[in-house]
């Protein structure tokens, strides 16, 4: 190969790939170690694990505290996702298609929760719901998380809407559909993959969100991340390796599904 002609460039190439390998190990090792330890037969965090066991998964799925947190997280994340999806879809339509005054300002406002550090949004939401005496309320947590993931939905749906050929909708209107009918029966099905990936990422990020539920939680309403947080701070409980592996699997599932959707979008 010509590339190897000078030894200097050969060693640079070796150095580059050594750096890449190191970075990849750095990226993957912590995740791999957690998953490996979650199947450990040891009673404490022994590395390398001495044998295979599902004891920590049993602990996770049989413990009523962990399960109630899992269901609470699920309900809150679904509520937040549904809210952000509906409001975000409507807002994205206006932002992509309509012309109106103060558009830039409104755009910045809609995307702001993504820019503002989460700790600030979290205390802002905490002050609000403390005033309304709604600390511990799942609805309060879902509303807070809906605000956090709204920008994500608007960004993904806007990108899909921009690629949509409006003439299809206009054709439906010429053929007698009302604008609403045309939107619901032509546009929505065609941008469905974009809406679905927005839903997936919104769900994942609100399921994982810690700070807002941490401040808003009460002892009886602890989401999964909040319970992980409290038990990590109290002691090292190996059950968390199983809970963590569960969350890693969730991330992989969302990424995989989004990949499939992207392929579907490419075909459409």
């Amino acid at each position: 190969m010509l590339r190897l002609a000078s030894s200097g460039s050969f060693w640079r190439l070796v150095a580059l790939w050594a750096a890449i390998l190191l970075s990849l190990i750095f990226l993957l090792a912590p995740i791999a170690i957690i998953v490996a330890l979650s199947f450990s037969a040891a009673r404490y965090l022994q590395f390398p694990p001495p044998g295979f066991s599902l004891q920590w998964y049993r602990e996770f799925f049989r413990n009523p505290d962990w399960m109630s947190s899992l269901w609470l997280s699920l309900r809150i994340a679904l509520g937040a996702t549904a809210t952000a999806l509906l409001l975000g879809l409507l807002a994205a339509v206006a932002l992509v298609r309509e012309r109106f005054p103060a558009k830039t300002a409104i755009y910045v406002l809609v995307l702001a929760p993504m820019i503002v550090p989460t700790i600030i949004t979290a205390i802002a939401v905490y002050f609000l719901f403390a005033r309304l005496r709604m600390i511990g309320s799942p609805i309060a947590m879902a509303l807070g998380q809906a605000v956090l993931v709204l920008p994500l939905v608007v960004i993904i749906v806007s990108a899909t809407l921009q690629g949509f050929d409006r003439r299809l909708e206009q054709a439906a209107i010429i053929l007698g559909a009302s604008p609403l009918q045309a939107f619901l029966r032509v546009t929505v099905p065609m941008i469905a993959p974009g809406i679905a990936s927005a839903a997936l990422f919104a769900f994942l990020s609100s399921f994982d969100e810690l700070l807002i539920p941490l401040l808003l939680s009460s002892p009886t309403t602890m989401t999964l991340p909040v319970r992980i947080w409290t038990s990590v701070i109290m002691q090292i409980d190996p059950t968390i390796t199983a809970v963590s592996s569960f969350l890693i699997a969730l991330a992989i599932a969302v990424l995989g599904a989004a990949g499939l959707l992207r392929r579907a979008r490419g075909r459409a």
Partner: protein
Amino acid sequence: MSQSSPFVPATAAAMGRRSRRPPLALCLLLPALLLLGFVFLYPMLDIVLRSIAAPRGGVSLAHYGKIIAQPAYLRVFLITFEIALSVTVATLLLGYPLAYVLVTARRGIAAAIMACVLLAFFTDVLVRTYAWLVILGPEGALNQVLRALGSAPLNLLYNRYGVLLGMCYALLPYMVLTLYSVMRGIDRNLLQAARNLGASDWRAFRHVFLPLSLPGIAGGSLLVFILAIGYFITPRLLGGAGDQMIAMVIEQQVELGVDWGFASALAIVLLALTILGFLLYDRLVGLKSLFESKI
């Protein structure tokens, strides 16, 4: 309504739309604006007001004065900047080769590397921080391996090393993805042209690719720095007494109910720094690039 009549041509339908445009845009935006107004904008204004409220009514800048007057809080800002800067430099050094390989390697290899970056990006930060807790602890995976090899244990937890490792890990994907989105736009024919004119691979990289990737370096570094100064989870779990960052102090003041006014003032300062960072980002790279979906 005339619009729904099948015989109205598209242009007329479009004109019909135009006449009622302002209400339509408003109707579409109203639900989102109501939510944002109630759960985001109003509480933000509340923070501003709390930060300047005097104990017995009226306006006072006492909370802000406290930040400057007390060396302990000034130190928190100093530590925050120190950590954020180190993390920025480290993620740039680690992330640049990764992003470079992502745009130059063969498709299969690039896709595999991208999968690793995205997996790390989408795994919960709390889980990724917990992983470092398990690895770095006194009885953690690293020290168990070291002991088996007969070497002395390392003390990497509850100190600056732990914070830096954990935060680099958490923020590296942001750096890589920002660099990647800029590098992908670089015309590779320019590199080929440089080589055809006699430049070595290295010279072509240094004089052509590197300068063209500068917006990515600026954007990635700014983004990581901005995210780092607001970080909470990782430094709280992996850091020691000397690694108090701004967000941790804010959370503490609120959670312990110490001083909400002071917490608000700290939040406003952090917010101002963040906005300043993003304005700079907008000047250098353009905010639009931040909001393109990167996946």
